[in-house]
């Protein structure tokens, strides 16, 4: 049985990968002229640190039963997810070109088993933490020590099912098998969460019996450290609340609800790629 371990890259190496992921994201959404750049760009550091330094996975053997699981509960962030999977070696980066087009396995939202590495389906918000409970329960039954990581949006926290699952994780004693990550970018589909539906992630998770770890979601070293802390046993399940900026890395997308689900023009793409390559404002 393979004993894949995380790659353990330096922060500089992770930053280089993050640039590539950001470039894929804007290029994919441009090619398809549809898709969700904002919530993809905000999650990049979290995804890169997780996929390279924390997930015990083997891209050569994506179905390895002992692998750690990652569930993209905010399923619209597929430009982010698919480029992570491609850069990590689950499939060729060439496949990204077909994103959202007829005949491509890379649909707008994750479709389980349609391409290697896609653990479960998504697109209907609020369900990922429940999947983790199921898979972590099975892991316990089968004597496996894999961990389930779930990435959620902050708007997604509006869904009641999130909180049904949040109360179940400590109840079932699954805290050392599940880690939740919240991409706290402050925006949802219709605008700022503070006007659409206010959430208080720290207080809410704490109230449901979780240990809350906060970090700057664009400081790669801080993200890597927060994920390490989340792996450490604790009396409670851990949630990483990462403070992020929707659209991070592309000036005109940053903090702009208009780019939740909109493609850039050719001119905007050029500017976006330039800014991403320069890495303005990225730690």
């Amino acid at each position, binding site marked *: 049985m393979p004993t894949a371990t995380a790659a353990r890259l330096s922060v500089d190496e992770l930053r280089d990968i993050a640039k590539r992921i950001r470039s894929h994201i804007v290029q994919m959404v441009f090619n398809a002229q549809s898709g969700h750049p904002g919530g993809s760009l905000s999650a990049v550091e979290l995804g890169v640190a997780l996929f390279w330094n924390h997930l015990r996975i083997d891209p050569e053997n994506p179905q390895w039963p002992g692998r750690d699981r990652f569930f993209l509960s905010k399923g619209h962030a597929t430009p982010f997810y698919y480029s992570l999977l491609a850069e990590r070696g689950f499939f060729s980066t060439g496949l990204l070109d077909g994103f959202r087009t007829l005949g491509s396995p890379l649909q707008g939202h994750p479709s389980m088993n349609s391409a290697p590495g896609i653990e479960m389906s998504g697109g209907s918000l609020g369900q990922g933490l429940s999947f983790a409970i199921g898979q972590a329960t099975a892991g316990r039954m089968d004597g496996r020590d894999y961990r389930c990581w779930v990435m959620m949006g902050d708007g997604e926290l509006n869904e009641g099912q999130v909180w049904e699952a949040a109360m179940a994780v400590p109840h079932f004693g699954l805290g050392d098998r599940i880690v939740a990550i919240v991409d706290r970018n402050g925006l949802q*589909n219709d605008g700022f969460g503070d006007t659409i539906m206010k959430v208080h992630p720290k207080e809410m998770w704490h109230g449901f019996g979780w240990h809350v770890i906060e970090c700057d979601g664009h400081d790669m070293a801080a993200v890597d450290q927060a994920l390490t802390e989340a792996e450490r046993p604790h009396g409670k399940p851990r949630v990483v609340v990462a403070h992020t900026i929707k659209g991070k890395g592309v000036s005109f997308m940053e903090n702009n609800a208009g780019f939740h689900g909109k493609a850039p023009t050719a001119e905007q793409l050029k500017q976006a790629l330039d800014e991403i390559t320069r890495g303005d404002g990225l730690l």
Partner: protein
Amino acid sequence: MTSVAPVTAATREAYPKALIQLAEEGVDVVAIDADLSVSTMGYQFGEKYPDRWMTVGVAEANMVGIGAGLAATGKTAFIASFAAFLPGRCFDQLRTSVAQPKGGMNVKCVASHGGITVGEDGMSAQAIEDLALATALIPFDVVVPADFESARQAIVAVGKTSKPAYVRTGRPKVPGLYTTGYRFELGKATQLRAGSDVTLIACGILVSIALQAAEQLAADGVSARVLDMATIKPIDREAVIAAARDTGAIVTAEEHQTVGGLGSAVARVLVETIPVPVSMVGVDRYGTSGKWDELLGYFELTPQRLAQAAKDAIARKR
């Protein structure tokens, strides 16, 4: 009043227009969105009537319950989301809190992005079960308008009843079929073309495809009647029976699976009255990403397929 020519627009664009008309006419409407108001277009009503509009975040089940509460006080509640999530994410709330109270509560669902023409978002966003779910809710009227003008009038019409309704609108811009002189009537089919050999009964985006199919059939010497069956429930029994009597063969066409939608509703009338051959055209498998017009081809929601289905049904006449 002069009548305005048909406009090319998405049927979802009719939603805020209809809400504004209802409010202007004095209907005590309150509209709710669930973090998709930019897509359902509900925000446009909110801009005009901020006191009559609310957004509850990504929380469809909560939205239904709030709608039921508003309706219980006498308000006319409208709730909106994508057809994948309304009724998909809140069916139990619709059933127990809106459908089951005697006569049904005054809650109107206007679900946008119905069917596979959602396009690139892919399988999870493409509702092909919503009509089956909505028609299964006993007091609900269920309407699938074919163009902007009929959508606008249909939403106004359900806004003036005191019972629950489900209106499905679509994402893409589609050609207009009706002038403002048209009068939508809940529960009544509209005949768009006369014919004697077969009747094409369609709803939503399939209506204009059925009209194209009728043209193709005419070129082959087949005379096809075309009905816009915008109201799936209550179905226009008389129009279905007349179609069976006059033409002896039926094709149904919908952007939905053939189980539980328009095809099922038409077939049910026929087996109880004049059983004639029926060919059902719909989407009986889950979707995938693609441009909406490409997907119509991919799922064979095309004039060619409808014309072929008509010929198949005619061949089965006894």
